[in-house]
């Protein structure tokens, strides 16, 4: 009888078991859902039978992943990769669940897995085919990437002709060919300006990149030299890891390797639940975070008028820690996505979150998808963290993500504090900005783009037993490093006129948040140059904890037509060092009076021209504080004053410190007088405050009369439109009339996208991967 072969049916039988990858993945999901154990693994047979062998397997693979990362990053020329370590390598099992990951930006524990799952569920095995030696490239934010500048190379791993897993490598490239230069630009309002977008494309065969890919990709970005070396970095790392897997299989056998690749995920699931029970307290925690989106300003020059509005990102989080150690993160009430680049795919959330958790709840080497399986995520469809429209821009999804996660720090830290693990308490994370970005023709006469990763070193949150660290780390890269001035000056046509700790930037408290830092840059030797700002200005995204204050917000300083070329030639004074007190306008005293200066709260701008000798202040934010500032010990205040971390005015106003300064300028805080002043200060607090319920009556009246700024009302309108639950809770709390509501249509601002939207899942022949409750 004539029968169709696998070739004719398009069935590749990659697993050699008669199943498609999708069927096999479906079975794993079913076993997981039915039993509650990953892949039905109630018993970890290999681990129990041969615990030492299991650990040796773990060590070999994990060590190999880290080694590959450390080796491969030396290939890169981009300071983002080579200096800041913005890369990582991850090993997956055959269905794209993460087995182990390297150090680095482990955000990608699940993002590349989402790409693999997308290939599985959309039958890549039939077309374009998956074969030994293939390479796939992905940066598509609509299927799980965080932002387009994270380029992933994914390589399948075969054993005797059978697909047994995948390895992925990701680097943060310096430019993606978006509307404006830099890896995380602001000038676009949708995916269609977000830059070069690659959807799990086969970009190599026989371990060799395809020439059409090499030609197309390099001319699609502004920085081809960095791009191609990043590509070589990823390929080298992936191939090192593939060889490692082959060596491990040769030594330990395929059966043990494959068992390990599933058991270690179940072990990771149990590990997170165990740590939750060991470190936290069951119950319900409610926290919230916000981000300002000030797009109405004249310095936001976007192509779409409907994007020109001021709004606020709203990220409420109800964290429920359950009796069994599982936890649920519910973002009911979050605001809608918007016409900017700060939207996040659900996987960016569920995967990216572990880079934060590895710094607190899971500080182990065993980061894999097990933690995901111990977590229930609820990200309502249509919100900023799970958009329901395939047009959304994602270039700086981190802006919202890290702000949203600041609420998780506070929830977990409440648990640590109540349980007595004070050493683990962290009041939150800095808004990891400003982002100095731009491009043009650089000092070498080449088309160029920059994204200064000085933001890798912001202030950290205060602990319950110590201050936060100054200019230390960013939540998204636990290896925080601000980079060497000399390297940045080679990469950017910008000289340093100062690099100082930013006074008053850390949130006050018994223990203060870590201070950020500021660098004053002068454009030098460029031929045509543009830059822009990206950060928070009108709002804080963190809160402080248990009486601590949030960190300071951002502001911008830029100056044009400065006269610095003449001043330098004449040996006149020029701006140097810190902008110690922004209200004093110190820099302006050393540039021409006719200079054009922008010193304001508009910390979000789009590409604007800078001439040589123009100035740009890059201010990296501080972290939030812990505890009542009146509990801060006087010696710490004195130290902060003398190290220029705190202005004397605020030692008095916030800490109620009684300060004197001697002839040499050294500050001293008088302990006895401070104690007396603090007693008065507490009385003043009581005198100026009112019972909360009294104040609520006034606030209720303001709500009923719609007395609030447009961005505030817009935020509530988009949250209400997506969530009846949130709206009802709001109205119940304030005891509002039944017919009270806020609608976008009444606000007089553009509402394009508020009613009609189209999700990627509605495109023909597309199966999207959903990994959260929506």
């Amino acid at each position, binding site marked *: 009888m004539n029968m169709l072969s696998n070739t004719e049916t398009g069935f590749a039988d990659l697993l050699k078991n008669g199943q498609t990858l999708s069927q096999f993945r479906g079975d794993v999901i079913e076993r997981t859902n039915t039993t509650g154990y990953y892949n039905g693994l109630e018993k970890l047979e290999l681990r129990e039978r041969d615990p030492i062998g299991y650990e040796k397997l773990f060590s070999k693979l994990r060590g190999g992943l880290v080694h590959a990362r450390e080796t491969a990053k030396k290939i890169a020329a981009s300071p983002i990769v080579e200096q800041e370590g913005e890369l990582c390598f991850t090993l997956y099992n055959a269905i794209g669940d993460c087995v182990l990951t390297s150090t680095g930006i482990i955000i990608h524990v699940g993002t590349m897995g989402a790409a693999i799952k997308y290939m599985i569920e959309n039958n890549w095995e039939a077309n374009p085919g998956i074969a030994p030696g293939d390479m796939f490239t992905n940066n598509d934010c609509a299927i799980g990437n965080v932002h387009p500048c994270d380029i992933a190379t994914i390589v399948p791993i075969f054993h005797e002709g059978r697909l047994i897993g995948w390895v992925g490598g990701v680097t943060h490239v310096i430019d993606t060919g978006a509307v404006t230069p830099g890896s995380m630009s602001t000038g676009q309002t949708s995916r269609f300006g977000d830059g070069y977008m690659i959807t799990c494309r086969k970009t190599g065969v026989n371990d060799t990149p395809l020439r059409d890919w090499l030609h197309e990709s390099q001319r699609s970005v502004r920085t081809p030299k960095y791009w191609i070396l990043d590509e070589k970095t990823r390929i080298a790392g992936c191939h090192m890891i593939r060889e490692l897997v082959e060596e491990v299989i040769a030594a330990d056998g395929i059966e043990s390797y494959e068992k390990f690749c599933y058991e270690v995920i179940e072990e990771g699931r149990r590990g997170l639940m165990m740590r939750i*029970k060991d470190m936290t*307290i069951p119950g319900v925690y*409610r*926290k*919230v975070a*916000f981000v300002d989106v000030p797009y109405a300003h004249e310095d936001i020059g976007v192509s779409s008028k409907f994007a020109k509005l001021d709004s606020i990102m709203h990220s409420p989080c109800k964290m429920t820690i359950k*009796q069994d150690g599982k936890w649920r993160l519910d973002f009911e009430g979050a605001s809608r996505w918007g016409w900017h680049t700060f939207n996040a795919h659900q996987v960016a959330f569920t995967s990216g979150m572990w880079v934060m958790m590895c710094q607190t709840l899971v500080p182990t080497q065993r980061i894999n998808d097990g933690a995901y399986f111990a977590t229930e995520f609820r990200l309502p469809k249509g919100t900023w963290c799970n958009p329901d429209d395939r047009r959304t821009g994602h270039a700086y999804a981190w802006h919202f993500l890290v702000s949203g996660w600041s609420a998780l720090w*506070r929830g977990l830290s*409440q648990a640590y*504090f*109540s349980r*007595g693990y*004070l*050493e683990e308490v962290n009041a939150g994370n800095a808004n990891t900005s400003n982002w100095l970005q731009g491009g043009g023709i650089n000092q070498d006469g080449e088309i160029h783009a920059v994204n200064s990763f000085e933001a890798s070193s912001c202030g950290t949150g205060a602990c*319950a*037993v*110590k201050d936060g660290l100054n200019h230390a780390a960013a939540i998204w890269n636990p290896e925080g490093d601000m980079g060497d001035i000399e390297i940045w000056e080679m990469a950017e046509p910008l000289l340093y006129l100062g690099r100082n700790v930013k006074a*008053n930037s850390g949130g*006050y408290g018994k*223990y203060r948040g870590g201070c950020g830092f500021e660098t004053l840059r002068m454009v030098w030797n460029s031929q045509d140059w543009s830059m822009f700002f990206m950060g928070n*200005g*009108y*709002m804080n995204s*963190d*809160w402080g904890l*248990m*009486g601590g*204050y*949030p960190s*300071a*917000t951002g*502001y911008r300083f830029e100056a044009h037509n400065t006269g610095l070329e003449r001043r330098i030639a004449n040996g006149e004074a020029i701006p140097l060092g810190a902008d110690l*007190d922004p*209200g004093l306008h110190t820099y302006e005293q050393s540039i021409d009076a006719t200079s054009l200066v922008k010193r304001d*709260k508009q910390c979000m701008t789009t590409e604007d021209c800078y001439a040589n000798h123009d100035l740009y202040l890059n201010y990296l934010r501080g972290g939030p504080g812990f*505890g*009542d500032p*009146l*509990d801060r010990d006087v010696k710490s205040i004195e130290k902060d004053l003398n190290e220029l971390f705190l202005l004397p005015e*605020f030692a008095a*106003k*916030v800490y109620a410190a009684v300060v004197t300064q001697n002839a040499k300028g050294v500050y001293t805080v008088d302990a006895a007088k401070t104690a007396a002043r603090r007693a008065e*200060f*507490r*009385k*003043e*607090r*009581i005198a100026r*405050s*009112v*019972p*909360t319920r009294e*104040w609520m009556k006034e606030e209720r009246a303001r709500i009923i009369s719609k007395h*609030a*700024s447009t*961005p*505030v009302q817009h935020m509530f309108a988009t949250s209400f439109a997506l969530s009846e639950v949130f709206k009802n809770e*709001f109205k119940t*709390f*304030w005891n509002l009339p039944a017919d009270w509501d806020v609608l976008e249509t009444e606000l007089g601002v553009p509402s394009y996208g508020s009613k009609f939207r189209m999700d990627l899942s509605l495109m023909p022949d597309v199966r999207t991967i959903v990994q959260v409750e929506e």
Partner: protein
Amino acid sequence: MSTYNKEQVAHLAAGTLDWDTTFRMLQMPKDKARFSMYVEALQAKLTFPDRIVLPLGPHLYIVQSAKNKQWIVKCDCGHEFCGYKENWKLFANIYVRDTPEAMADVYPALMAPDTKWQVYREYYCPSCGTMHDVEAPTPWYPVIHDFEPDIETFYKEWVGMPLPERAA
């Protein structure tokens, strides 16, 4: 797992523990006995006889009232806010920084939030003036009920301690 003695945990609570021990606490798996030692250390500093059930903040506790065994939220100055299931902030005093002038008392020029976008709500103890919390929401935002602990499960199942008696 590392273990620590009562003196070390008391120093931790007071913020005077040496860094080597603090670092070991960070580095090593958590010590199961911490909670009981921590509560004991905090209890020793209180000037009233109520028993701590759960610490909520540096000066705020859920305690078992010595008078009637009810669980209440209480400041370490002795001020009683409310029952432990209620939101203590609704029983506190509040000061809202919702003007540029009020923000200028906290941050240098340009470094405070714009109060049209965000306000600070400072919650004070009405008796002693301790600032127990600072919220930083938009105007209109409901007062957040931050934490509803499942104390019964925590005591009985997670740390294996007898649950303090609670009067209805």
